């Protein structure tokens, strides 16, 4: 809930933090949307392992006869669902606040959102487990994760901007390739390194 309010507030701030005569809502919109999603997701990821940690459930999970990879995938899915939920509400808000005409690009934008989110959530899930037991973890997680959010963010913002300008998705093939490659690489790597994050 807090993540949602946070997201809404950021959108509001973006709208007022510009000179409307110079910057059209449509030009600002992609950046605003993606920055918002980024920060809301980081907030969500910060809490991802906190609950288990507080209740000692992490040790219980480790004792269970479930592979480490399964724990990761489970966590990943959970995080994706959560960020998906935040986005499901943020995106309509964004269309509303920025008075956008989507020209039927919604499916493409949703696809984009999914691709970008998988990428950084894959890494974010690893980092949230890692920073859960580290000092200053509220700060450590964003510090470590934000660089990883940049390539998906650039790709998503660029493609969104093209889509809103009425260009077909095919025009953004290059960016989409980068996004997909990023997802594959980091999902694979994350699954491979995640066991190292859980104690022996």
């Amino acid at each position, binding site marked *: 809930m807090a993540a949602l309010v946070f997201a809404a507030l950021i959108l509001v701030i973006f709208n007022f933090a510009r000179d409307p005569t110079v910057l059209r809502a449509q030009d600002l919109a992609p950046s605003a949307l993606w920055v918002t999603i980024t920060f809301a997701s980081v907030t969500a990821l910060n809490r991802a392992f906190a609950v288990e940690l507080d209740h000692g459930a992490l040790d219980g999970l480790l004792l269970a006869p479930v592979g480490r990879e399964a724990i990761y995938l489970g966590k990943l899915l959970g995080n994706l669902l959560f960020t998906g939920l935040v986005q499901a509400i943020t995106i309509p808000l964004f269309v509303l606040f920025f008075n956008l005409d989507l020209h039927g690009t919604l499916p493409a934008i949703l696809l984009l959102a999914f691709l970008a989110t998988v990428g950084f959530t894959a890494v974010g899930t690893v980092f949230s487990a890692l920073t859960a037991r580290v000092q*200053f973890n509220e700060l*450590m997680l964003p510090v470590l994760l*934000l660089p*990883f959010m940049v390539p998906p963010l650039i790709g998503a913002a660029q493609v969104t901007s093209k889509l809103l300008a009425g260009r077909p998705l095919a025009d953004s093939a290059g960016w989409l390739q980068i996004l997909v490659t990023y997802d594959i690489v980091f999902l694979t790597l994350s699954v491979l390194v995640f066991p*190292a994050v859980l104690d022996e």
Partner: protein
Amino acid sequence: MTSSSSLSASSSFPQSSTSSAVVAARKSIRLGQALTVLALVALAAHYVRAIQYTPIEATQGLAQKIFYVHVPAAWSAFLAFGILGVCSALFLWLHDRRLDLFAEASAEVGTVLTLIVLTTGPLWGKPIWGTWWQWEVRLTSTLFLFFLMVGYLTLRRSIFDPLERARYSAVVGILGAMLVPFIHLSVYMFRTIHPKPVILNPEGPTLPGSMLSTLLEGVAIMTVMYLGLVLVRYGIGRLQDEKEARHAAQG
């Protein structure tokens, strides 16, 4: 909740016999110091060559010569980071604590090199591009290198158990190393679509032979500089590690 097992008892993170660790550390330090001094002297010679004997670029003037320290520094910063990535991956596979210590050394030296790139960059950019900063591929990638290395070192400082610290840093190291190609690619694509008007092309359409050879000399020198510094820093890390192990054994 840190593990309470003593450092040397942990079988998955073995300590080499203590005196061999100290001997190895000392050797590393001696070799590193020799290489560093060699590199510093060579750097001075390189300065002379770059300033005196390499032609001045007619349209860009003397400031173009910053190129001969900026690019080599960038090369060795990326080398440092690449080695950090490799050591991190190897560590997760082999659990050899020396790999962890070398990664840490590489991160610290790399951070210094990155700072050099990020400060000489604007000093070059202002006279050549007209702006202190541009979001172009090399500078942006180096900036990310800086963030990643600082994040890596900060993380290390917040974990007190050596095994946990080594494992977690290795995870960050590997993921970080894989990120850099994507940053590079994304910025490149971004620049291709939104090119900034570059008044002068700093590297020129082709680099004349004399400039290229000076540049390559710079690269060689900075590579040796990296090696020297990292070996000293690695030796320091091993001695530190040994010192902590002895305290833990006594306490």
